[in-house]
């Protein structure tokens, strides 16, 4: 069969089951766009390439499939770098196609040439420059396989213009097998026996789950483990939703803005079962005081995550879901004793921490941001897909929206990139058209990719944007308040656009609440609309996120309200 590179690309995308591409065109990818139009693959035209990559990321997280993004060479490619870095840090499977100047011009500083493979080498799981049309089919297949398998991540394919236009005799690629890439899915059973022994002997155990459990779809197995062993569960920011936020064994999030009881129990526990986490510094605080009395079992598919930051008693390399399944089976054969009795004093201790120092705020006559999130949770019954921007808004979303299910909290965890929430919400809404998708935003962050309002409108996406407007870069202001003598340098944002008018300018609906009693009516009205809606909440300007562990301190030493 005689096919051009662009035609081969379409064929491969279909074979990979791609139904949506987020992209933005340019000179060297016109041929690809020309072919794309002949397929039934849906193309979402964003307004900025950063929007495309974040949308592909949001799509991947909400659907559990690989997100795809297509941009032109040079500036189109460089505009995706931030989003690639975010997907890389959060291990999100996306494949990015960038156009490139024709092969014979590469290296000549041609118009709109950048070495995007060089630029993204440290922030992709892998990347390729396709030099011959003959290699294209195999590379696309490899890229999708690498992006989605093992510890997932972004893979970039750089496509010179002539590679897309050249016609060759197409041969279907063989089954992909890379001798240098074989992720370990099934764990060493000996290690699991050691873990079982530790679980049986533990008096004060906790489970600490992260994004790896979401990615491996192991939420059910994790919940089963917790219930079977009566071990309380905490999550990293990335793990929220893998264990129901309403379960009596739920400890809340751990870390810099973790709950008092989660952080205290990590300090006091004698066994920490870490599943699909990488012990980020925002979780551990000062590493040598993290879980000082605990034996640690660490389950992760990426061997480099294990013992990178924290010494571990029992390392287990394997897929979280498969490993938890096996662990549960082993535990079923064990006599775990009278769990009610054995866990009693530990669970009581945790209950005491919870009742003396709960997450709290006082709603008086100015709207509290926490109140808005709590109302949003009540009104949506915890069923919405929540994306966030970055800063205080993100932390309040994590603390006050009690996630019940995985894939419902979509946030830029590792990179913490402002401007993530709106495009990610667009991607999530496309993956889940029937779901309510809400971006919990700050007034600063939302302005970083506000142009994607036009995308939402163009495709009739009813995403809801809840802006917690404190007219500050609030999280930075909080640090200045607490650690820099209240010197609020470069964090005041008095000059924001009128968000209601802005929404209207984009053809969307704009609503505003300035008083506490307006919060609920605005939410009800906004959430029930079938339009794209911005809901602006004018909130207490100098509210802080608590608890807070100062950077580098032990996580049991929290600043409280």
């Amino acid at each position: 069969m005689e096919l051009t590179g662009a035609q081969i690309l379409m064929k491969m995308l279909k074979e990979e089951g791609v139904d949506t591409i987020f992209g933005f065109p340019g000179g060297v990818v016109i041929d690809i766009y020309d072919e794309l139009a002949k397929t039934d693959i849906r193309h979402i035209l964003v307004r900025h390439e950063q929007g495309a990559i974040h949308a592909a990321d949001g799509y991947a997280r909400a659907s559990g499939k690989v997100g795809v993004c297509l941009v032109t060479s040079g500036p189109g490619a460089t505009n995706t770098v931030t989003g690639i870095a975010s997907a890389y840090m959060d291990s999100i499977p996306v494949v990015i196609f960038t156009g490139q100047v024709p092969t014979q011009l590469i290296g000549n500083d041609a118009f709109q040439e950048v070495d995007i493979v060089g630029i993204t080498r440290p922030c992709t799981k892998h990347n390729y420059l396709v030099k011959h049309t003959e290699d294209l089919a195999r590379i696309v297949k490899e890229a999708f396989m690498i992006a989605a398998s093992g510890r997932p991540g972004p893979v970039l394919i750089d496509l010179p213009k002539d590679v897309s236009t050249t016609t060759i005799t197409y041969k279907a690629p063989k089954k992909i097998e890379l001798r240098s890439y074989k992720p370990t899915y099934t764990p060493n059973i000996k290690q699991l026996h050691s873990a079982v022994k530790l679980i049986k002997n533990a008096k004060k155990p906790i489970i600490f789950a992260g994004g790896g459990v979401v990615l491996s779809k192991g939420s059910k197995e994790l919940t089963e483990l917790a219930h079977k062993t009566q071990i309380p569960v905490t999550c990293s920011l990335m793990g929220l939703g893998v264990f129901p936020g309403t379960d009596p064994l739920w400890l809340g999030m751990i870390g810099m803005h973790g709950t008092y009881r989660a952080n205290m129990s990590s300090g006091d526990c004698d066994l920490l079962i870490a599943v699909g986490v990488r012990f980020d510094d925002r979780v551990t605080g000062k590493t040598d005081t993290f879980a000082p009395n605990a034996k640690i079992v660490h389950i992760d598919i990426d061997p480099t995550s294990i013992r990178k930051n924290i010494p571990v008693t029992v390392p287990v390399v394997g897929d979280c879901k498969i490993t938890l399944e096996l662990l549960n089976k082993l535990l079923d054969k064990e006599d775990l004793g009278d769990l009610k009795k054995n866990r009693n004093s530990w669970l009581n201790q945790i209950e005491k921490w919870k009742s003396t120092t709960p997450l709290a705020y006082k709603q008086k006559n100015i709207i509290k941001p926490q109140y808005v999130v709590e109302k949003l949770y009540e009104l949506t019954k915890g069923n919405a897909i929540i994306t966030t921007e970055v800063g205080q808004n993100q932390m309040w979303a994590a603390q006050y929206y009690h996630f019940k299910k995985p894939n419902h909290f979509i946030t830029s965890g590792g990179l913490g990139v402002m401007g993530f929430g709106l495009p990610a919400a667009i991607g999530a809404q496309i993956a889940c058209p029937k779901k309510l998708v809400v971006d919990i935003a700050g007034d600063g962050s939302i302005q970083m990719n506000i142009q994607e309002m036009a995308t939402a409108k163009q495709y009739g996406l009813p995403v809801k944007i809840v802006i917690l407007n404190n007219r500050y870069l609030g999280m930075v202001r909080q640090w200045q308040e607490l650690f820099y003598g209240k010197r609020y340098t470069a964090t005041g944002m008095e000059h924001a656009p009128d968000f209601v008018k802005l929404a209207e300018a984009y053809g969307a609906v704009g609503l505003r609440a300035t008083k506490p009693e307006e919060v609920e009516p605005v939410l009800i009205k906004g959430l029930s609309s079938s339009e794209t809606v911005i809901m602006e909440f004018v909130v207490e300007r100098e509210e802080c996120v608590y608890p807070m562990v100062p950077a580098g301190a032990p996580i049991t030493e929290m600043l409280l309200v």
Partner: protein
Amino acid sequence: MTKQKHILSILVENQPGVLSRIAGLFSGRGYNIESLCVAETTDPLVSRVTMVTMADKPIVEQIMKQLHKLINVIKVYELTGSSYVQREMALIKVQAKPEYRAEILRIVDIFRCKVVDVGREHYTLEVTGDEGKMDAILNLLKPIGIKEIAKTGIIALFREPK
């Protein structure tokens, strides 16, 4: 923990960009490279990288895992701590004033190296050996006057059981 010298032998796919992935990993994560040698193996699709790094034990473990995580890396071995042979080659250009020529040739003889270039004012020597030998000959030649030196960096292989 104390830093020690570690010799890593890394089999990689023989493709453009692989070396820069390895070098990027080291610079990006703040690991250090003492020396690095790359060449094709008998399989033209595979290259062997021999790398010497100074690090403490947990860091070396992490380096090896990180290397292995690179998609184009096939295998990573650590040679240090097991039985291996190592060699390095150096070209040393020494000043060769008439009064020193005999002395230099004596050293050449003792260390079984070769004179590969001779001039009115210099000798260029080819030396092969392990680190100990390299240090020893350099120490002897230094007072005579070393003009220039080029070293290959260490290459090494496991010893097979006898």
